[in-house]
C-alpha cells in the first residue's frame, strides 16, 4: 500500500488548496520555521481519524480550520483527502485506489468519505486497523514522542507494543 496524494484546503495554514504527490522512497518536507511543515503532518493525522485536540496543538477542534490573516477572511470549512494505492490489498476493501476524506465545518458539522461516499469515522479507523497507521501508531514520530518513550509517560511503551503486536 502506498500513499499517492494528499490534498489540503482550509486546514490550519492552508488557506489555498495544496496538493502533494507522494512517490516511493524518502520524501523530505523542508522550509523555514512556521511555514506549515508540521501542519502537513497534522493534516495526515487528522484525516486518519485523530480526535485528540492536544495532539493537533489546538484547544478545540474548530481551531484547525484556517483562521484567516490580516488580509484574508477565515475559512468556513477544513477539508483533507489522502489517497492510497491499494493494489496489494492491504486495506480490507476491494478498491485498488482508496481516498479518505475528512471535512469539518465551522458550525460543527463533520463529514467523512471513503472514495467519495459518505461514511462514519469508524469506517475510516476500521480500514486502517492492524496496518500500523492510525492516530495512535508508531509511524508518526516527533521529538515529544522520544521523550515519552524514554520517560515511559503514561505507559507509552506498552501502548506502542500493543499497537504493533
Amino acid at each position, binding site marked *: 500500500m502506498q500513499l499517492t496524494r494528499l490534498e489540503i484546503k482550509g486546514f490550519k495554514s492552508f*488557506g489555498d488548496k495544496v496538493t502533494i504527490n507522494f*512517490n516511493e522512497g524518502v520524501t523530505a518536507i523542508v522550509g523555514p520555521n512556521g511555514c506549515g511543515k508540521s501542519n502537513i503532518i497534522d493534516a495526515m493525522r487528522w484525516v486518519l481519524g485523530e480526535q485528540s485536540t492536544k495532539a493537533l496543538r489546538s484547544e478545540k477542534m474548530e481551531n484547525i480550520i484556517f483562521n484567516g490573516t490580516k488580509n484574508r477572511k477565515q475559512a468556513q470549512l477544513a477539508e483533507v483527502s489522502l489517497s492510497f494505492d491499494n493494489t496489494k490489498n492491504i486495506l480490507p476493501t476491494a478498491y485498488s485506489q482508496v481516498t479518505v476524506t475528512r471535512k469539518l465545518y465551522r458550525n460543527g458539522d463533520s463529514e467523512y468519505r471513503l472514495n467519495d461516499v459518505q461514511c462514519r469515522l469508524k469506517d475510516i479507523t476500521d480500514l486502517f486497523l492492524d496496518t500500523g497507521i492510525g492516530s495512535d501508531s508508531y509511524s508518526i514520530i516527533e521529538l515529544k514522542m522520544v521523550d515519552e518513550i524514554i520517560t515511559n509517560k503514561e505507559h507509552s511503551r506498552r501502548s506502542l507494543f500493543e499497537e504493533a503486536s
Partner: protein
Amino acid sequence: AKDKFMEAFTQARSHFIVVFRSLFNEEDSCDLILSDVNNPLEADIDIVARPKGKRPLSINQLSGGEKTLTATALLFSLYLLKPAPFCIFDEVDAPLDDTNIDKFNNIIRKFSDQSQFIIVSHNKRTIASTDIIYGVTMVEQGVSRVVAVDLREVAA
C-alpha cells in the same frame, strides 16, 4: 493473548538489539526487559541502553542524542514487527550530531524499499539524503504553499 504478546515481545527484543547496534556500535549492549515475566500483559517494559562501554544507571542519564537514538531503535524494532506502509519523522534529527544523522538516514534508506518515508527536517545532510524534496513556503503571510524543490538548488 499472553502468548501472542510474549511472542511479539521476544521478536521486538531481538530486532531492538540489532537496530540499536547499527545506530550505536556493534559491541554495545542493550536489552528490553519485562519488569514481571509472570505478568506480561501488565508489566512495564524496561529499556537497557549501554552505548560505547558506558554503564548508565538508567536511560534517563543518557544524553539528548543518545535518548533520541535509543527511542528510534525501539520504534524501528516495532516497525520490523509490523511494517507500516509509511513512516513520518518530524525533526527527529534535531538533537543528533553529524555522524548520528548519517546513521539515522542510512537506516531509513535501508527500510525505504519496504515503506515510504516522509522526513521533515532543517538539516542539510538529512535533506541531501532524500529522493524528493517538497518546500513549504508562506509567500503570502500566514498562507502555506508547497513546491517541488530541485536538489541542486538546495545544495547551492
